[in-house]
């Protein structure tokens, strides 16, 4: 649960980012103008700023100069290297080019928060607790005996909670590209996780797509 400031003048895209980040349990503040962004940044502390470059009022680079210590992800419509370098050189930590995918946004936000130690050390859902530091899954406080692949699968589901992940995507993320087994492997592991953690209701099958871990926002 991080405090994130979204600075983007397009209401539709600002909304889109907010919805995506709230799926992962973050709390968002939406700003549509460069000058307003500078004002609110002076008043309040955020864990992360997602900043568009082309803004009315002060542009993204000007806002970037006002930000100290807070990690920034730049949102650019231009994919040219010079634009990315300009942003990165002025203190941005990462960038996302439009159009972006949900998983990409989630992964970059997650990575940046983890790097600045703002990511949570554990995740709790019902009576299940995931301890990232000790690489343990606990049910009712007792460690569950699970294989490394089952653990990785659960971590992937937790990190992308509320987002449906296809079997192929899960294979890529958990087993890696060089894994030869079919998507049945994913189904088998999901069944075992559901049984071991008692999350039959939470890990839902999404029609034609894959699986999604549903956690209340």
């Amino acid at each position, binding site marked *: 649960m991080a405090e994130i400031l979204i600075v983007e*003048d*397009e*209401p539709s895209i600002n*909304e*889109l980012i907010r919805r*995506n980040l709230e799926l992962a349990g973050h709390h968002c503040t939406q700003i549509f103008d460069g000058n307003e962004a500078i004002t609110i940044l002076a008043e309040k502390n955020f864990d992360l700023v997602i900043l568009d470059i082309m803004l*009315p009022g002060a542009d993204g680079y000007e806002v970037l100069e006002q930000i100290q210590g807070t990690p920034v992800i730049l949102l650019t419509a231009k994919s040219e290297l010079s634009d990315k370098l300009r942003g990165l050189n002025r203190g941005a930590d990462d960038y996302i080019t*439009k159009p972006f995918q*949900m998983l990409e946004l989630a992964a970059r936000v997650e990575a940046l928060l983890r790097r600045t130690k703002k990511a949570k050390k554990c995740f709790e859902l019902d009576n299940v607790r995931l301890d990232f530091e000790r690489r343990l899954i606990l049910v009712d406080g007792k460690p569950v005996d699970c294989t490394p692949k089952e653990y990785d699968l659960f971590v992937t589901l937790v990190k992308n909670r509320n987002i449906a992940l296809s079997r192929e995507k899960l294979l890529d993320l958990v087993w890696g590209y060089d894994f030869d087994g079919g998507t049945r492997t994913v189904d088998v592991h999901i069944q075992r996780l559901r049984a071991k953690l008692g999350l039959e209701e939470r890990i839902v099958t999404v029609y034609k797509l894959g699986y999604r871990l*549903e956690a209340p926002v």
Partner: protein
Amino acid sequence: MKRKTFIVTLLLFMIFMNSSMLIVSFITLRERMAAERETVLAEHYVISSGLIGDMQAVQNRGGDVRESMGDLMRTYARYSQKRDNAFAVSCEGDWIWYSGNTAPAEDPGGLAGQTDQSERMVFVRRKPEWQLCVYGRFPAPFQEYGLWYCAGLSDTFEAWRGMKNMLFTISMTVTFILALFLVKFLDILFRPLREISAASRVIAEGDYHTRLPVRGKDEIALMAEHFNRMAEQVESHIKLLQETADKKQQFVDNFAHELRTPLTAIYGYAEYLQKAPAAEKERFECTQFILSECGRLQNMAYQLLDLAALRELKTEVCSIDSLFQRVREIMQVKAEKSRIALFFSGSGEYVIGNTELLITLLSNLMDNAFKASEEGSAVRVSAERKEDKVIFEVKDQGIGMTREQIDHIKEAFYRVDKSRSRAAGGAGLGLSICDRIVELHGGSLEFISEPGRGTMAQVILPGGEEETGFTTS
């Protein structure tokens, strides 16, 4: 080319020079031979007359002329010993005396037969060496006798040969000097050609700034001048093409950028709907975003089509009154919605142009005026004729623009205030379309504005003949 000119010139020169040298030397030789002949004849005459005198004296003394010939001839032989001459005296078909060791090869009888009393025979002997020989018979009473005199020509030939060699040496030297001068001269002559060739190569490589120096007023200078004019034309055309290409590139870049925002939203919401657990309300909101972004894309597509379709112009005479009437119909609703007062002024005038396009032009300009205006302010549209021009003005009391914004305002997808303009549903192509319409009408579109003081858009169209408007009404 240069080498050819060099070789041909040199060859021609050598032919003329050497042949004239040859002619000169032959003429000289002939003159020398003639002079030699005169000398030989004169000497023959002197000797024969002396000899006749001597022979007469001998005869008078009663001596035998034939016997004493050796004594008589000795003095003459001595006289001419130093020169390479030879004498011989014949008598009745025999050589009775001769200088040197051998008698002349000619048959004295034959020689005597070929000459008569008064004439002397002159001929050239070639063997054993070049010699000029004279044979003449003595007059009576010594008609049986004849004197053969022969003078060597080797001196003459030697002198002639010397002269000939000298002439050829001079000819060769002159040819050599000429060759040097020719090289230098051709070098100078061909320099402009070389420069032109170098310049055209540079231009061919893409550097269109190159110009040739123009010297004097000859054909080459004229050619250089034409070449420069050509290069100028090429340069300006290339520049124009470059500008057009840059503009197109700018347009494409802006277009791609402009496409990204709706695409990002549409893609993002569709993915969200597919992957996230969305409730009924959220699904509606997401689809609403997708629909409105699609509407924006559609709007952009229509405007692009409008812009692309603006290629030719069908003009007619249109009354400004009816033009304003139709624009008012279109814009009234919008004006009321934004609570903006609309004023039209100027009537009875006519303008030559395409009515539909002029309506698009005015409504686009007014649309921009509305966007810049606050609620409760006024937008004034006026038309007036000044000399042969018709001037339309659209004035607002809105936020105005800075100098820099005015410079960019006609570029496709440029927005003075992008969030406002997008919220108002613009694609950023309105003024590009206006500019194109005005351009097609052969007019101009200017903006006069100051931040905070409102903007005036001024369209100046050529009005055509003033009478035209009234007669066709």
